[in-house]
C-alpha cells in the first residue's frame, strides 16, 4: 500500500465517507497532499486538524463546469493532483431537477473532460452505487459487474442519475488518457450517506412487504473508504468493481439488529404509509424506489475487487444491537 502520490483530490469531502477517506489518506505518509472539495464553506467543513499544508480545502459547486475548470487548472494543478476520487453525489432522493442532475452527472462529465487534458491528473476513481443494478425475480441473486443495469422506465431521477453517471464513466474507460475505476458500492448503512435503508430504519417501526424477506448486503463507511483508497492507489488498473460489505442478511434482520421492530404488511399499505410519511415528515425513503429490493434478493459479488484490487470487506456495519449469537 506504500505508493508515492503527489496529490489526491477528494470530492464530497464533507460527507462521512469523504471525511473518513481524507483522514485515512492523510495518515499515509506516501501521499504528499490532499485536496478536499466540498460545497460547505471551510469553517463549516468537518475537516481533520493537525495536518498543516498537507490538507487543502476548497468550497466548489461541481455542478458548474467553469468552477470545475478553475479548480482543476488552479489549485489542483498547483498541488500536482494525480488522482481524483469522486464521491460527490446528491444524497437526498426527494430532490430532483437540473441542479441535482448537474451535481450527479455533469460534475463527473466535467471531471472526465478536463482530467483528460490535465497535466498532472492520471487517474479517476468514481464511487458508484449498487442501485444502478436491476433487481428482478428472474435475475441472478449474486450480482456480478455484467449484471443488467436499472434502465426501468419511470425510475426516479435519483436512480437515473446514478445509472447515467456510471455509464458516463464506463464509456470513457480504455479510451481516455485517464485511468478510470468505477466502484459500485453496496449501500452504506450510515447517516449522511444517502442510504435509503438508513432512512427506512429511522422510524419506530419498519414496514416491509408481507411474505418477503430478501437478502441484502450493506457496507460500512470504513470498508467503503478502504475500497476507495485501494482503487486510488491501484495505478494501471481500470474497470468496474463491485464493493460488497461484510454484512449480508435478510431485511428483517437488518431492522432487528437496528433495534427497530419490523412489521410485514401488504405492499399497498407500506407504499401508502411511506408516501404519506415522505410528504408530511420530509423523510427520504421511497417505497416505490425500493419496491423490488424489498421483494427480491440482490447481493453484490465482490470477486473482481478481491482479485484485482485486493479488497476484502473487513468492518461490519456498526449495529446498535448485537445479539451475540450471529444466528439469533
Amino acid at each position, binding site marked *: 500500500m506504500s505508493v508515492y502520490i503527489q496529490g489526491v483530490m477528494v470530492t464530497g469531502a464533507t460527507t462521512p465517507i469523504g471525511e473518513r477517506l481524507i483522514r485515512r489518506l492523510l495518515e499515509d505518509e506516501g501521499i504528499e497532499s490532499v485536496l478536499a472539495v466540498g460545497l460547505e464553506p471551510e469553517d463549516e467543513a468537518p475537516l481533520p486538524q493537525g495536518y498543516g499544508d498537507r490538507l487543502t480545502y476548497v468550497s466548489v459547486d461541481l455542478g458548474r463546469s467553469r468552477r470545475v475548470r478553475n479548480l482543476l487548472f488552479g489549485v489542483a494543478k498547483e498541488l500536482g493532483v494525480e488522482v481524483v476520487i469522486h464521491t460527490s453525489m446528491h444524497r437526498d432522493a426527494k430532490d430532483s431537477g437540473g441542479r441535482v442532475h448537474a451535481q450527479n452527472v455533469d460534475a463527473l462529465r466535467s471531471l472526465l473532460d478536463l482530467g483528460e487534458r490535465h497535466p498532472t491528473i492520471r487517474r479517476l476513481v468514481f464511487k458508484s452505487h449498487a442501485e444502478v443494478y436491476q433487481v428482478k*425475480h*428472474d*435475475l*441472478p*441473486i*449474486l450480482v*456480478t459487474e455484467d*449484471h443488467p443495469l436499472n434502465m426501468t422506465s419511470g425510475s426516479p431521477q435519483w436512480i437515473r442519475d446514478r445509472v447515467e453517471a456510471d455509464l458516463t464513466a464506463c464509456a470513457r474507460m480504455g479510451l481516455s488518457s485517464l485511468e478510470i475505476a468505477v466502484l459500485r458500492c453496496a449501500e452504506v448503512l450510515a447517516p449522511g450517506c444517502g442510504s435509503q435503508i438508513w432512512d427506512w430504519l429511522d422510524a419506530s417501526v419498519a414496514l*416491509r*412487504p*408481507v*411474505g*418477503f*424477506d*430478501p*437478502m441484502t*448486503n450493506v457496507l460500512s463507511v470504513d470498508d467503503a473508504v478502504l475500497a476507495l483508497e485501494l482503487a486510488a492507489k491501484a495505478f494501471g488498473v481500470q474497470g468496474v468493481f463491485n464493493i460488497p460489505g*461484510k*454484512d*449480508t*442478511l*435478510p431485511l*428483517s*434482520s437488518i431492522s*432487528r439488529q437496528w433495534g427497530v421492530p419490523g412489521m*410485514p404488511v401488504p405492499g399497498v399499505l407500506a407504499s401508502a404509509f411511506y408516501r404519506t410519511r415522505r410528504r408530511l415528515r420530509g423523510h427520504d425513503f421511497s417505497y416505490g424506489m425500493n419496491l423490488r429490493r424489498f*421483494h*427480491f*434478493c440482490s*447481493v453484490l*459479488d465482490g470477486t473482481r475487487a478481491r482479485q484485482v484490487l485486493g479488497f476484502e470487506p473487513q468492518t*461490519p456495519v456498526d449495529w446498535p444491537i448485537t445479539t451475540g*449469537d*450471529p*444466528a*439469533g
Partner: protein
Amino acid sequence: MPMPPLLARTIAQARLDAETLAYVDRLPMPGDAGHGYDAFGLHRDFVKLGLCAAKPLYDSYFRVQSFGNEKVPKTGPGVLASNHSGTVPTDGMMLWADVVLKVGRIPRPVADHFVPTLPVVGTFFARGGMVGGSRGNARALLGSGELLMIFPEGTPGIGKHFRDRYKLQKWRVGHAELAIRHGAPVIPVAFIGPEEQMPQIARLDRLGKLLGLPYVPVPATPLPMPVRYHIHYGDPIPTDRDYRPQDADDPDAVAEAAAKVGEAVQALIDAGLKQRGGRLFT
C-alpha cells in the same frame, strides 16, 4: 420464511429429535456470507425447520424409500436431474429431505422463476437452499462446489396428464450445459410414486395467469394420495470425461449430454416401476 432464526430453531427443537438436530448441525454449510446466512438466503436453522415440515411426510405419509443414494457425491459440484410430477411439487421436497438425511449434504433446488415471487413460500424455500432458476444463480452455486437439484421437465412435468405418467416431458438442456461448463457429474434420479399421487383433471390457465402462476391445477383429489415414494439414484454421468468446458457453448454437445441424462432417468423409471410392480401404497 420471514421469521428470525431463533424462532425457527425453537420450533425445530420442539419438533425434531436431538439426534436429527445434531445431525443437521454437523452438515457442511456453504460459505457464511454473514449473520449465519449464505448469499442466497440459506440458513442452518431453517434447514431444521424445513425438516420439521418434510420429515412427517417423508417418514409417515409418503414413506420414502431411497435406493442408490451412496452414488451421490459427498463433496464437490454435482447436478441431480430428476423426473418431476405430482400436481404439487412434493417430489422436490422429498428429494431435498432424502439428500439431507441420507447423503449428508444440503442440495440447492433450482426452482422456476415464479417461485421467488410467491409470498412466504418463496422465502421459506430459499432459507432451505432453493434458488430461482437463473443461469447466474446456478453457475455461482456450481462454481462454489454445491449440489444442484434440477427438474429438467420444469413446470410441464408437474402438470402432466395422468395418461402421460412416467413418460418424460420435454427434457430441457440447461442442466447439461451447466454440468459441462463446470465439469460436474450429473446424477440421474427417478421418482416412482408422485406421478400417481394427484391425477389432474383440468388446468385453469387464465386464472393462473391472473395469479402470476403458470396455471392453476384442478386435481381429482383434494390432497396428494399417500402413495409410497421410491427414489432411485443412478450412476453419476461424468461430463468432464466426454466434454470440455467450452463444449457448453456447443448446442449439439449440450443436447447430446442432456439426452444421455434423459435416457438414464427414463431407464431408472422403467426399472423402478418393474421393481415396484402394482403396489402403489405399500
